[in-house]
């Protein structure tokens, strides 16, 4: 029997409303007891004195790029990056090559994750075949073999009827529709947020209404069909507000915010910084404040990274032609802890946003330390000072806008199913 005791840490599990200095006993990958003064012979012991001990962090928006874009990331490197950032579960988007729209690709991802992965991987299948927006995927079977949700992230379903039918079809299978809400006609050839900075830089803008209009549509379709809707990476004041109002009406909607949208604004683009280029784009300070308010008041359910690795060659070009997206798994926790230090949210809320709340949004069987649950645990040193060095990231790609940032707080040990998959000392 494999035994592991995590001793003396401040255990915070929002799912059980727990916050106490306790020991955790793990046997055969399962949490068997939590309490004071736990000892067991022949158990491996991790001393967590002075540290936070939380359920393993859950990131419901990650691009692992595998299959098809292994030069950017693969399942091994992406999940290594995850555990280095304290994440024990990731949901991976289907915009691979080929697209994850069928049994074979889903099985490939699950098998590879089982064999080479450092953390749990929950595939998200596409809504439409090939993400082409024209016909539905076999959602029943995809759910049965392990997909947790469906999404055409990155290539939003433009046709409103298609989206309606997708929701009607997904609902009885218990699948959530995960929407990247952008009206592509309004996005046009825009490359950053529309506003004074884009005007100054002479770059084509993407107006906030591109996101708001699409969010409204999908929220109303969810209201019509009763299908669970999860809105990815809300970045505008309007879309936060739309979700807030929808929740009040009882619409089954959840949403997430990314660390880059709550930490940065369009100002980061100055100097034509391609690592500040993503979709939706970095917005105005007013939008950022609205996202912070949404994180605090419960409108936003999850902090998710939208970890989007790109090769140096795809970023080391003129801004207009650079790829969209940034890596985020290894900086998310520190940036979230900064929100706590800034007084935006408290520590409980932060952990909730990174554990049980995202798990609930996609109905994942993780995110808590309850007795009997899989022993996914993250040990956090909230005071650890470190400097981001893009070249040192575990991810294959180095496209972070936070290179050189002084951070405070990090995961020091990540346990997945009772096994230590990351230890900062090693």
């Amino acid at each position, binding site marked *: 029997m494999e035994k592991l005791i995590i001793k003396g840490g401040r255990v915070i599990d929002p799912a059980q409303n727990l916050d106490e200095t306790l020991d955790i006993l793990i046997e055969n990958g399962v949490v068997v007891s939590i309490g004071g003064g736990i000892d067991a012979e022949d158990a491996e012991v991790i001393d967590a004195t002075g540290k936070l001990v939380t359920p393993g962090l859950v990131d419901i928006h990650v691009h692992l790029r595998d299959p098809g874009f292994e030069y950017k990331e693969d399942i091994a490197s992406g999940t290594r990056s995850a555990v280095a950032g304290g994440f024990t579960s990731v949901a991976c988007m289907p915009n691979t090559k080929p697209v994850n729209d069928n049994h074979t690709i889903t099985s490939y991802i699950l098998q590879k994750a089982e064999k080479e992965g450092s953390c749990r991987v929950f595939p998200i299948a596409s809504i439409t075949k090939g993400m082409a927006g024209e016909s539905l995927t076999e959602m029943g079977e995809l759910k049965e073999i392990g997909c947790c949700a469906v999404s055409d992230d990155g290539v939003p379903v433009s046709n409103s009827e298609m989206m309606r039918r997708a929701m009607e079809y997904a609902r009885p299978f218990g699948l959530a529709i995960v929407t990247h809400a952008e009206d592509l006609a309004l996005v046009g050839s825009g490359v950053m947020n529309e506003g004074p900075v884009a005007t100054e830089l*002479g770059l084509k803008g993407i*107006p906030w209404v591109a996101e708001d209009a699409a969010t409204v549509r999908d929220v109303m379709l969810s209201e019509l069909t009763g299908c669970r809707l999860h809105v990815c990476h809300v970045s505008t004041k309007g879309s936060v507000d739309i979700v807030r109002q929808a929740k009040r009406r009882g619409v089954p909607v959840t949403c997430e915010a990314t660390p880059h949208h709550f930490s940065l604004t369009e100002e980061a683009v100055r100097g034509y910084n391609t690592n500040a280029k993503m979709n939706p784009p970095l917005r105005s300070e007013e939008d950022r404040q609205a996202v912070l308010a949404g994180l605090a008041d419960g409108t936003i359910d999850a902090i998710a990274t939208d970890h989007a690795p790109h090769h140096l060659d795809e970023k080391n070009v003129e801004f207009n032609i650079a790829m969209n997206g940034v890596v985020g798994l290894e900086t998310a926790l520190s940036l979230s802890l900064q929100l706590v230090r800034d007084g935006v949210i408290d520590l409980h809320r932060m952990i909730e946003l990174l554990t049980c709340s995202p798990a609930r949004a996609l109905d994942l069987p993780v995110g808590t330390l309850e007795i009997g649950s899989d022993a996914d645990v993250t040990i956090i040193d909230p005071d650890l000072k470190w400097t981001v060095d893009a070249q040192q990231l575990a991810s294959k790609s180095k496209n972070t806008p936070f290179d050189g940032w002084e951070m405070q707080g990090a995961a020091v040990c990540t346990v997945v199913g009772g096994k230590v998959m990351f230890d900062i000392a090693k």
Partner: protein
Amino acid sequence: MAFRHKHILGIEHLSAEDIQLILDTAESFKEINSRDIKKVPTLRGKTIINAFFEASTRTRLSFEIAGKRLSADSVNISGSTSSVVKGETLEDTAKNIEAMAPDIIVIRHGHSGSPHYLAERVGCSIINAGDGAHEHPSQALLDLMTMREHKGSIKGLEVAIVGDITHSRVARSNIYALTRMGARIRLAGPGTMIPAGIEKMGDVTVFNDLRDAIKDADVVMMLRIQLERQSKTLLPSLREYARYFGLNQENLKLARPDAIVMHPGPMNRGVEISSYVSDGEQNVILDQVENGVAVRMALLYLVSGVDAILAE
């Protein structure tokens, strides 16, 4: 006063003193252009590469002549003859050019920020000859030189800029330059061609009606409508554009009687400007072209940091 800029990436980075110095230097070079032998040895032995990744006749010609009159060796590469079309990255193109050890690269590029991108990656001086919808500093400087010649001073001038502001690097560079020198800018154009937040770039007021924008103006600058570039969603027709945003003898009367009419060229006669106006008494369009050579000589001279006597 010494000029401390290695690159000219945009007017944004220039102070009023910098602009003053460039204009004064250009004025002294202008005299050379009227001599029998239009050449001084100031930049002898210097190599200038005019890298034009976007079609341009007059700006390229102007930079080329400016370089030759200063005795520099200038070489041109253009979008169609350079290796850019073969899918080489801008960085590789730049490194290749740099390996040939030029002193200055003059770059025109369709993507905003390209000169900035180059300046971060190569060792020589970079002069921006127009990048996307961002900046066109030498154009703004020659515009200011022309205004100064005709009006004595830039300070206090009311300058109307009319047309497609959204896609205009000329407008942006002029807004920076004019604001810095104490002029006031009035903008007018179709609602689809006024970019968000343009008022924040300088001393700018946006008018819905062309007539309000040019009323009592000292300078009326008409921008070129890029016929080939305008998507169908921006304008219903050129006919309607000419009717509401074209400059003609009638609406020009609203400007001050001594107002000057400018255009960065090439003009679409009968669209943004009527021939009666473009060829009329108030036009200074060819002065702009002439001053363009002098301003570009000044820029090449100033960034090269040579201590030579200006004109012998």
